[in-house]
Each structure stands twice: as C-alpha cells, then as structure tokens.
C-alpha cells in the first residue's frame, strides 16, 4: 500500500467507516458528529489536544462505549451492538492508553489469551489431554513465542506481566492485540513515556508489523513529529469535533489546526 499523496481516501471500498459518531456524557459532548474512513493498509493518525475525544472515539470503534449517535461500518456492515468481543472477532484489536494487561498472568499467557479465538479445541480431547489436543496446544505455544519474538519480548516470556518495565508492557499490549489476528490495529498513545530513541524504535516497529501482517493501523499519539513521519493521513480532533483531515503536509498547513492545536506553540 502506498501513501496517499493528496490525503483523500482511496477509491476501493473502505475498511472502516466512522459515520457521524456523537458521544455525550451527561452535559459533555465528547464527540460531535465525527466521520472518518480508513482504507485497507494505511497508517492513519489521530491527533488533538488532551480531552479532544480521541480515546472516546477508540472506545466507540472497539465497542466499549455505545455512541449516542452515528455508527461504524466494517467493510460496509454496521457494527452497532456487537460489543467489544464481537468487534474484536470482526478483526479490530486495540491497545489501551493506560495499559490494561492481565497483570497476574505471565507474558506468554497474555499472548495466549489473545490467541483465544484460535485455541478452540474439541471438548473431550481437551479434557483428557489427548495427543491431537497436545499438538494443537504446541502450535499455539509456538505462535505465541513467534509473536513475542517479533516484539522482542521472547526472553521475558515467563515473567509476570505486572512486573515488566513500562516500555515492555506497551509492546506486550501490542503483541496481545496482534494475537487476536486483527485486520485493523488501534494503538492508543503507544509512545507515551518513551524517550526519543525508543520512539524511533517504536515507529520502525509499527511499520514492520504493518508490513508483516498486512495491517491497517489507526494510531493516537501526542508526539506530532512522530505522527508526521509515521502516518499517511491524519485527522485532528478538538473539543470532540474533527477540525481537519488530510496528509501530514496538508494538516500542518491547515489554519484551524494551527490555531486550535499548535496555536500556543507557534
């Protein structure tokens, strides 16, 4: 998939359409008729100041929050009412801004839980631990280790997830999300708390897994320079409203973005 120089969605049917999503919490309008389209294979960035509604949009797309208006379409079909589990099974996986690992489980087990969909085995064989069942288990273990190796976590496989340092946790969340065999990966501030060198590594890692799994990636990140280099297209949210959409170059020039988001700094 090549970058889209003019920032418009490609002609082929979009993977995910976000249609006029609104989200109201009490008196607060967290999202105001936000629309987006993601094309298969692109890396799409979502930026905006704190409280702009980026994570809320993620929660809506991944089925954790029910929107008060609008809907999402996955390959043209509405995802309304599917819930987090159903949406994950469609092929949408996510990470969390505030890290939600299964902390009492080992690193390896976290990934195995992600492989839940693939772990279905015949009941009787599973109960008695038959030969075919053990073979199946072996393949799952191998798959988990492979994912861990890709994210450079294989040496830590037996550690308790809750004991990992911060950066490793971030990568483990990505590994766990990848284990669910997604087509679309939502990354919520994956570079938070990382130093510049680590951010650079992360950028390369995201590119690598996108290529390896032929993924589409939707990413929230505060670090604008990183996003400018990483993403083919960007959307900017401010106070729940989408104020800009386009290629990094377009967004950078957009007067509303400069005013609302970068205004204080330039």
């Amino acid at each position, binding site marked *: 998939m090549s970058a889209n120089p003019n920032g418009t969605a490609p002609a082929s049917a979009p993977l995910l359409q976000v249609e006029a999503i609104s989200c109201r919490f009490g008196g607060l309008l967290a999202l105001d008729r936000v629309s987006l389209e993601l094309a298969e294979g692109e890396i799409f960035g979502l930026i905006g100041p704190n409280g702009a509604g980026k*994570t809320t949009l993620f*929660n809506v797309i991944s089925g*954790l*929050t029910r929107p008060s208006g609008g809907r999402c379409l996955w390959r043209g079909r509405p995802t309304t009412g599917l819930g987090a589990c159903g949406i994950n099974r469609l092929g949408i996986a996510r990470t969390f801004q505030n890290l939600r690992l299964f902390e009492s489980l080992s690193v390896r087990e976290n990934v195995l839980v992600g492989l839940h969909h693939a772990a279905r085995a015949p009941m009787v064989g599973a109960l008695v631990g038959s030969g075919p069942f053990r073979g199946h288990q072996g393949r799952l273990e191998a798959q988990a280790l492979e994912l861990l190796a890709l994210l450079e976590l294989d040496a830590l496989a037996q550690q308790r997830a809750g004991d990992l340092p911060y950066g490793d946790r971030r990568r483990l969340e990505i590994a766990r999300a990848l284990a669910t065999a997604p087509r679309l990966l939502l990354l919520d501030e994956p570079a938070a708390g990382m130093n510049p060198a680590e951010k650079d590594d992360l950028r390369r890692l995201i590119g690598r897994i996108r290529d390896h799994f032929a993924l589409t990636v939707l990413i929230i990140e505060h670090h604008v320079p990183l996003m400018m280099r990483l993403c083919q297209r960007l959307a900017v949210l401010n106070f729940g409203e989408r104020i800009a959409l386009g290629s990094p170059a377009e967004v950078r020039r957009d007067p509303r973005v400069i005013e609302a988001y970068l205004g204080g700094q330039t």
Partner: protein
Amino acid sequence: MDLLQILVNGLSVGAVYGLFALGYTLVFSVLGVINFAHGAVFTVGAYFTYLLIGGAVGANGLLAGLALPFALPIWGALPLAGLGAALVALLVERVAFRPLRRRRADPLLALITSLGAGVILVNLIQLLVGAESYAIPTGALGGLPASFPLLGARVRTVQALLLGIALLLVAMLTLWLEGSRNGKGLQAVAEDAETAQLLGIDSTAMVRLAFGLSGFLAGVAGGLVGLSVSIAGPYFGIGYGLKGLAVLVLGGLGSVPGAVLGGLIVGLAEAFVPADWSGWKDAVSYGFLFLVLLLRPRGLLGRPLPTKV
C-alpha cells in the same frame, strides 16, 4: 387488620430497618465495603439497653445474675447504649478494617474479617449472658401508657417511639452531614478519598467517624427492637443484618435518604403480607432486592455506577 394499623406497624418496623441500613451506608460510602459485623453491633446495643434499663442477666453465662446498681429511664439508656455500641464498632474498625487498609489489601477481604469480628462478638455475648431471650421490662417507658388510640387504630407507644427516634436521628444526621465541617469532610472522603487526603482531610479519622456513627445508629436500633419485640438471643441481629442489606441496595448504596426510604418501603411491604403467609415475609425484602439489582442496580436514590474504560 385495617389499613391504618398496617401502616403504623410497617412504618415503625421500616424506621428500624432504615436506621440499621444507615449504618451500613455510612461505612460503605467511605470504604466501599460492607461491614458484616454490623448485625452483631446491633445485638450488642440491644443487650446494653437491657442492662442500662435495669435488667438482670439470666442464669446462664459467665455473668449470671449480674445487674447494674442503677436503672436508667429509656431516654437515658438508649443514647448510652448507642455510645457503647459505637465503641464496639470502633473496635471492629480497629481490628478488622484498619490493618487491611494499611496493607492496601483487597477491600473484599474486609467481608471476611468483619464477619470474623461479628462471630467473635456474637459468641462472646453468648458466653457472657447465655443464649436465652431477654424481654426489656415494660416499666422502662416510665409513666407512658403501653399504647394509645390514633384515628381508630391502636398504636403501641414503642412503635411511636421507634418512628420518632428514627426520624429524629435521620434529620440530625442529614443536618450534620450538610452543615458541619466533619460532615462535609466525611462526604468528601466518600466522594474521592485520595483528593480529600490532598485537601488535608484526615481520611483515617473520617473512617473512624463513620464507624462510630454507624455503631451508634445500630446500637439505638438494637435497643429499640429489644424494647418493642424482645431480644431473641445473641444471634438475633443476623436476620436484621441481612434485611439491612436488602434495604441498603433498594435505597442505593451510599445514599443516606435512600437508606431511610428503602427501610420504610421494606417495612411497609412486609406489613402488608397477610398473617397466614407470614413465613413468606422474609422473601418480600429479598425479592425486592433481587428485582432492584436486576432493573436498577444503583438503587432508588443511588448515584449511577461508575464504568471505567
């Protein structure tokens, strides 16, 4: 039985349920857990009232034959019994809750530790005064008649006292929560303990305050029930403890007016169960509780439950 009589009976029982549930709700609002020793504190209050009013311990138990050298009238005995129960509740907090808080252990463990404290209290009572039931002497009401007529119904003086005292305590508690420095501090801790701590509110002191108040209310409720029915034995608080849970959820966990409203509703609903069906009476409150949990888990007057993402 005519309607008015049913209303009077229901409201007076409901008032006790409300008082009892208030104690639960105070502790729940600051700690987010249920104090399963609350029923035992209620029982302690009932026995204190019995002793202060001049009753003598029966033939069983280590304290057989003991009586205080004085006999107080009911308006002296009830507050003192409440204070005694408050001290016991503080002791429960000290041994069953504070160590867990200090170790930052799973708050659900407090269910077990507080039950352990309750088991100790109940069995200690049994050891000291025996398992028999005690009736608080009717002379305790001083010169008041045992009952009086009201609009054609017969109201027992005890019932009127129950209702009056319960309403008085609730009114005082509400005024105090809204009007005083400590009351506001308590509410702040209930809202958000960490922020309250940052604002310089001593949350440990507030927790202690909540336990003291809850013990006082339970003790007074115990005394009132002992006065109006009898003390059926060391275990008689357990049933009230469970009924109090139903009231608590019905009204909304952590809501003061909710606890009172829930108590009155459960009391009234039970009063409307016909005598032939009295065996099913207990099912009324639990049925209510079940329905409320399924239809509106936050209860009638509770705040919406938080959902974290």
